[in-house]
C-alpha cells in the first residue's frame, strides 16, 4: 500500500461505512467485480490495500473448462500412434491441472494473500457435472459464490418459462451442494424481472447481483466476420440496476448488489440509497487503476461527513421504491415525464 493511499483513507472521518452482504461483514460497500484484474494475486493484494471490502474473482466458465479439456485431449492425442518414429508429440505431464484445479489453486492463493472475503465466480449455462465445481470452490476456501448463469435462449421452441425454470434449477442444485452463501448475477432480460428475482431468492440465492452485461458482438465489414467487441461500462449503465434495486429493495429476502457503471462515491451512495448492500466495481478500475478504490472510499466518507450521515445503514434504501415520496418515478411514468420535459 502506498503512503498516499494510506493517507487518503486515514484522513477520512469516523463514518461507519461497513455493510453486510451474503452474511459477510464488510468494511465498506465497495467490492471488486469479477474481471481480469483478479487473475493476478498481486492485484488482489492491491485491491485490499486500496480498501476493497471483498473481491469477486474472475469467472470460471463451464464451457471454458470443458473446451480446455476437449482441446487438450484432442491436440495431445489426435496424432499419436500413427507413425512408427513418433508415437506421440508431447511429453505426458504427470501433474496436469485441467478443469477447475487451476482456479481452485487461485482461490487458495488469494485466501492466503488477503484478509478480505474472496467470492468465487462460477459461470455456467446448464445443469450438469459442473455444479460440482461449486463444492470444490467451497473446499478451496471461497467465502461465497457468485453464480453467473449465462443462458442465451436461441431455441425458438423454448418458452420463457422453460428458460426461467432452468435458472431456478441451477440455483437449487448449487445451493444444495454448498454451505457457503451464493449470489446470483442476473441479467435484465426476463419478462418479469421482479418475479424472477423473487424466485431466485426463494430457490436459495442469498444475494442478487444486478446486472450482468452480456457482451454484444459486432461485425467487421472488412473481413465480414462477427467479432467480439468489449466496451467498458459507462456511467449511464448504472441507471438500469439503480431502478431495479430500488424496485426490489425490501421486497425479497436476497441481498442486492449493484454492478455496471459504478465509478464514483456518488454512484455508490446512490446505490446504497436505493437499497444495495454493496456495489461491485470493475470498469473504473480498468480505466483509472486499482487505487481508484481509495478515492471512491475517501470521497464517500467526505460526502457522508459533509451531509452528516453516520452510517451506510442509515442511508440504505432511503431512496428505494418503497421509501420515496413518488415511487411511480421509478416506473413507466418516469419515462413519460422525461419525454414531456422536452416539450
Amino acid at each position, binding site marked *: 500500500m502506498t503512503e498516499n493511499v494510506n493517507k487518503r483513507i486515514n484522513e477520512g472521518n469516523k463514518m461507519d461505512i461497513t455493510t453486510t452482504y451474503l452474511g459477510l461483514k464488510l468494511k465498506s460497500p465497495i467490492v471488486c467485480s469479477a474481471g481480469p484484474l483478479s487473475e493476478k494475486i498481486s492485484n488482489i493484494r492491491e485491491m485490499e490495500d486500496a480498501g476493497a471490502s471483498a473481491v469477486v474473482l474472475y469467472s470460471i466458465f463451464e464451457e471454458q473448462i470443458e473446451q480446455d479439456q*476437449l482441446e*487438450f485431449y484432442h*491436440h495431445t492425442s489426435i496424432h499419436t500412434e500413427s507413425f*512408427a*518414429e513418433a508415437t506421440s508429440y508431447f*511429453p505426458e505431464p504427470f501433474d496436469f491441472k*485441467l*478443469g477447475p484445479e487451476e482456479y481452485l489453486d487461485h482461490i487458495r492463493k488469494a485466501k492466503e494473500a488477503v484478509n478480505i472475503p474472496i467470492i468465487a465466480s462460477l459461470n455456467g449455462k446448464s445443469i450438469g457435472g459442473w455444479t460440482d465445481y461449486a463444492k470444490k470452490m467451497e473446499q478451496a476456501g471461497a467465502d461465497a459464490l457468485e453464480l453467473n448463469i449465462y443462458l442465451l435462449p436461441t431455441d425458438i421452441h423454448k418458452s420463457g418459462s422453460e428458460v426461467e425454470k432452468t435458472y431456478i434449477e441451477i440455483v437449487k442444485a448449487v445451493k444444495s451442494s454448498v454451505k457457503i452463501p451464493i449470489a446470483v448475477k442476473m441479467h435484465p432480460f426476463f419478462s418479469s424481472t421482479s418475479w424472477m428475482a423473487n424466485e431466485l431468492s426463494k430457490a436459495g440465492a442469498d444475494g442478487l447481483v444486478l446486472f450482468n452485461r452480456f457482451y454484444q458482438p459486432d461485425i467487421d465489414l472488412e473481413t465480414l466476420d462477427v467479432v467480439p467487441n468489449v466496451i467498458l461500462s459507462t456511467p449511464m449503465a448504472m441507471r438500469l440496476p439503480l431502478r431495479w434495486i430500488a424496485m426490489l429493495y425490501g421486497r425479497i429476502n436476497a441481498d442486492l448488489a449493484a454492478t455496471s457503471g459504478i465509478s464514483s462515491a456518488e454512484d455508490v451512495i446512490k446505490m446504497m440509497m436505493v437499497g444495495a448492500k454493496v456495489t461491485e466495481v470493475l470498469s473504473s478500475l480498468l480505466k483509472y487503476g486499482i487505487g481508484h478504490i481509495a478515492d471512491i472510499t475517501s470521497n464517500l466518507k467526505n460526502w457522508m461527513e459533509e451531509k452528516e450521515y453516520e452510517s451506510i445503514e442509515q442511508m440504505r434504501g432511503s431512496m428505494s421504491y418503497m421509501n420515496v415520496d413518488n415511487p411511480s418515478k421509478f416506473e413507466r411514468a418516469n419515462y413519460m415525464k422525461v419525454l414531456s420535459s422536452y416539450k
Partner: protein
Amino acid sequence: MERNKVTIDGNEAAAYVAFNTNEVIAIYPITPSSNMGEWCDAWAAVNKKNIWGMIPSVSELQSEGGASGSVHGALQTGALTTTFTASQGLLLMIPNMFKIAGELTSTVFHVSARSIAAQALSIFGDHSDVMATRSTGFGLLSSNSVQEVMDFALIAQAATLEARIPFIHFFDGFRTSHEVMKIEELSLEDMKAMIDDELVIAHRKRALTPDYPVMRGTAQNPDVFFQGRETVNPFYNACPAIVQKHMDKFAKLTGRQYNLFDYVGSPDAEKIVIMMGSGSEAAEETVNYLISKGEKVGLLKVRLYRPFSIDPFIKALPKTIKLIAVLDRTKEPGAGGEPLYLDVVNAISEKYMAGELQFSFPKIVGGRYGLSSKEFTPAMVKAVFDNLSKDKPKAHFTVGIIEDVTNSSLDFDINFSVESSETFRGKFYGLGADGTVGANKNSIKIIGEGTDYFAQGYFVYDSKKSGSTTVSHLRFGPKEIKSTYLINKAKFIACHQQVFLEQWDMLKDASEGATFLLNTKVPKEQVWDSLPEKVQKDLINKKMKFWIIDAYKVGDETGMGVRINTIMQTCFFAISDIFPQEKAISMIKDSIKKTYGAKGDKIVQMNFNAVDQTIANLFEIKVPDKVTSKLQMQPAVSGNAPDFVKEVTAKIIAGEGDLLPVSKMPVDGTFPLTTTRWEKRNIALEVPVWDIETCIQCNKCVIVCPHATIRAKIFDEKELAGAPPTFKYTKYKSKDYGEGLYYSLQVAVEDCTGCSLCVDVCPAKNKKETKLKAINMAEQIPIREQERANWDFFFNIPDLDRKIVAVSKVKDSQFLEPLFEFSGACSGCGETPYVKLVSQLFGDRTIIANATGCSSIYGGNLPTTPWAANKDGRGPAWSNSLFEDNAEFGYGFRLAIDNHNLHAKELLKSFAAEIGNDFVDALLKADQKDEAEIYEQRERVDTLKKKLNDLLKARASGKSSDIKHLLSLADYLVKKSVWIMGGDGWAYDIGYGGLDHVLASGKNVNVLVLDTEVYSNTGGQCSKATPRGAVAKFAAAGKPGAKKDLGLMAMSYGNVYVAKVAMGANDQHTLRAFLEAEAYDGPSIIIAYSHCIAHGIDMGLAMHNQKAAVDSGYWPLFRFNPDLEKEGKNPFKLDSKGLKIKLKDYAYMETRYKMLTKSHPQHAEELIKEAQEDVIKKWKDYERIAAYDPAKEETSGQ
C-alpha cells in the same frame, strides 16, 4: 519377494533401470531409441529419484556425437553416466567409445539396435549398428525380450562397475524396443542389491579432480602406444567371469538364471542354431516344437558377445553336435562371413587346433536374417534346420527373402506354425487417427494387469504421416509367449475401417472359427452384401463369427468423433469372452479413469458414455452360406502406371513387399520420380469444391496447399474440347497473358488429405452467405468419380509457358507446375508448401540435398515418393545423405556442378572454330537470369549437342574423347540450382557446424530451413529452435532458454543472403525471398516458419498461427540481401510490422505453450514474461539494424 507385474515396452524397461542407476544422462533423439530419453526426461521433470535418492541430471545435446562427448566428460569426472541411441547415432559415438573403453571407464549405453543407412535409410531393427562398434572395446550384451531388457540393463550396470569395461546393452529396435510385454518389474531394492556402492565410490575416485590431479588423454608415440594399448588385456580376460558372476547373483535375487551362452534344446542335439537378439525367442519356440516332434535340435543364445569368451562358449555346446547354423542379423558386404559366424568358426577352430575340442569338427554355415525388422518366423527357423539336414547345406545363405540374384535364400513353408492353441491371437486394422493402437496398448495392459496371463502387443505402422494405417498384433494366454513375429493365425480380426477390406486380404490370416469385427456405417441388414467377394468366401469357408458396429455413429453421439478407440476396445472385450462382459466393462472404465483422469472429468465422462453406448450398437450377423458379392479388391495402382510402378511400387503399396525378389530391387538405391501420382489414397472424408461465382482467381489456395492437390491453369478455349460435363472453368479475369483465356481450379480429390487450409486462406466470401467462400469443403465420396475424370482432363491441359509466367506475383507463380506432389506428409503440413514452391520456381533445374527428418521421410520413404518430373522429363534430383552432414552434402553438389560447368566451358572454347565463335560466345556469356534466358540456353545446348554429334560422326575414332566429354558435360552449361533442405534439428543443432561452414564458403547454394521449432519426425523433441516457454519432449517443464537467432548469425558473415519468412503471414514476401535467394550468386538461407502437429494446433487454421507469430514480433519477416550493400544501401529490410499483439495472444493459441500453464502455471508465467521481453528486445535490435543508412554513415564518418 513379490514383485510388481508391469506391461511395458523394451524402451521403458531399459530406461527404468538406467534412470535409477545413473547420475548423469545425456540424450539425443533417434528412432527407435528416443523413448528411453523421453522417459528419463519426463521422470526428472517430476523429480523422480534414483536409488541414491538423487534426481539424475538429464540433458539433451546437439547430436549423438555431443551426447557421447558429454558422457565421456561426466564419466571422467566420476558420475555414473548413460545414454541411449541407435543406428547412425551409435556410429557418431564411436570415436568417444574408443576413448571411454581405452580409459577403462564403467558405463552402459542402451541401444535399440537399428539398421544403418546404406542403399536406403531404415528406421527398423537389426544389428548393423552394434556390429559396427565391435572394435571399440565396449562389451556387447544382447537381450532378447522385454523382460531380459530390464534384467540385462541391471546386470550390465553391475558388471561394468566391477569389470571397468564399458558396455553396450542392446536389444532389437521395434521388435523389442516397441513390443509391449507383461514382465516382472525389478524393485529398487533389487537394484541396490546388485549395484555395489564400493564400486560406485571406486568409479568416483577415478575422477579427474584438481584435488588429486592426474592427466588423461595424452598423445603417445610409436615407442609406447602399442604397449599402452595392450595394458587392458587382463580386464578383458576377466570380464566374462565378472558378467557371469553378476548373472548368478541376479539369479539368486530373482530366480531368472542367465549365462554368457544359454543353450536350449535336446541335450544330445546334432543340429543347432547359434544367434542373438529377439529372433532367438522364435527360434526357441521352434526348437521346442521340433523336439516335441522327435527331432534332436538345439539353440545357443549368445548373451555376452564381446568380450567373446571361447571356453564358456565351447562348454555350452552339446557334445553331440554335427551341424551348426550361425545366424547374423547384419550384413558385411565382402566379408568372409558375418561377425557372429566368424567368431563361432574361430572359437571352434582354435579349440580344435589346441586339441581341446571334445567333439568332431562340426559343419558350420552362416546365414543372414531379419535385416530392417524383416520377419523372422518359426517357418524360417525350420528352413535353417532343414538346410543343415541337406548333404551340402547352403553356406552364407539368407532366409526370409527371395534372393534370386545369387540364389542365397532358403525356401520356407509360409504355413508352418508352432503357436500354442491356448494363446489368444488378435489382429486389429486401424487408421492412425482413430486411436486403434492406443486402445490395443490399453487392452494389453488391462489383460496383463487383470489376469495371470502372459501378454504381448506389437504394432505396425505404414510410412505415411497422414491417413496412415496401423495393424496391432495382440497375444495373451497361460503359456509364456516367445513369438517375436507378426500374427498369421488369428483367432480375432478387427477391421476398424471398412474401406480396408478392398485394400487388404485381411481374413487370409484368420484361423478356422475365428471372430471378425467390422466397423461399418452400412446397416446390419445390408452389411453382408457390402463385403467384397473374397471376404464373404473366407467368412463362410472358415466358419467365422461376424460382428458389426457403427463406431462413427457412437463416436458422433458421444462426442468422441473419429477417435473410436474406446468404442472398438469395448467391442473387443464384449465379444472375445476374455472376461465376463460386466467385469470387462468395469475394467475398461477403471482404465479410462487411469488414462484420462488427468485430462479432465469431461474426457472421462465422454469415454464412459462411449463404452455404455457401444454395447447397444454392437450386433452379431449370422453368416449366410452363400457368396452374393461381386465386389473385388482394388488394384494398388492404375493400369496406366509405368512398369516399375506396377511391378514393384504397387506390390509394396499392397503390403506384399516381402514377396518382392531381390532381382526386382534397384542395385544402388536409385528410384524413379513421379510415383505418388499412381497411389490414389482417398483418405479425405471431405475435399474442397470450387465456387466459380465467388472466386477472385487469386491462387492463394494453390500456393498454400501442402499436397499440391489444388491447382490452377489458364488456357485457350480450344483446350476445352472433350471436357467432361462436370468440368468447371470460367473466363480468366486478367488479360496479362492475352485475351479470351479461361481459368480452372481443380482438386485432385483422391490425393487430397482434407486439411482445409485452402478454405481457410481463401479471401473471398460469398455475398449471400458469408460462411461460404470460393472453395468449400464437401463430402468426397459422392464426387469422387466425376472429379477423377475432371482431374485427368485438367491434368492434360498444357501448363502456361514457363517463359512468360510473371513468377514474382503469387497468383502467377501458381500457374507453374509443382514437381513435388501428393506427399504423405501430415494433413495440413506447414513445411510442404515451401518445398513445393521451390519445385515450382526452380524444379526443372534443381538438385536437392535433404537432411534426414520429416522432409526426407515424406520426400523419400517408399513405396511412393512425391518428387516428380515434368513433361520434358526434367525435375528435381533428390537425395538424402545423413542427418548431420546435409549442408556439406549439398556443398559437394555445388562443387561438382561448378566443376562440370567450368570443364564444359573450357572444352567449348576449344571447339569455337569448329562450331562457330558467335555460337560459343552466346553459350559462354548467357546470363540465364530468368526463365526465358534459361530456355534459350537450353535450346543452345540442344544445338550444341547436335553439332557435337555431327562432329563425332566426322571424326575418326580415337580422336573423339573431347567431344564425348563435352557431350556428357553440355547440360551443365545450363544453370543448376542447389537446394539444401532440412528441419531445425538439422540446421540449428546436429548440422549447424557444417551449415555454418557452407554458408561461410561463399558458394552458390540455397538453404531452406523448415523450422518447426522441434524435432518433428522423432516426435517433438526440443531443439535450439524451440522457443522459450514452449513445452517439448526433452523440455517437459518448458524450454528455459530463448530460441537461437540463426538468421542473425548467418547475417554476420555479410555475404550470405538471409530471409525469414512465414507464408501464412505474407505469401508475397515468401515468394520474393525464394526468388531473391536463388538469384543471389552466393550462399542463401531462408528460415521458414513451419507450423506442425507437434505445436498442438488446428492444422486447418494454422496460417492464423503464422500470422499471429509475425504480428506479435516473435517471427519478424526480413530479408538481408548483400547485393543491396553493393548498391550503397542497407542490405537489411524488416518486412513486417511487429508488436501488434502480445506474445501470449499468439503463444496461447498453441498447446505447446498452453500446456505449461496447466502443468507448471507459475513457471509458465515467468517464462512467457521473459519470452515477451526477448521479443521486444530482439524487435528493437532489428529496428535499429533496419534504420541503418549507409549513405549517412559515410557522411558522418568523413
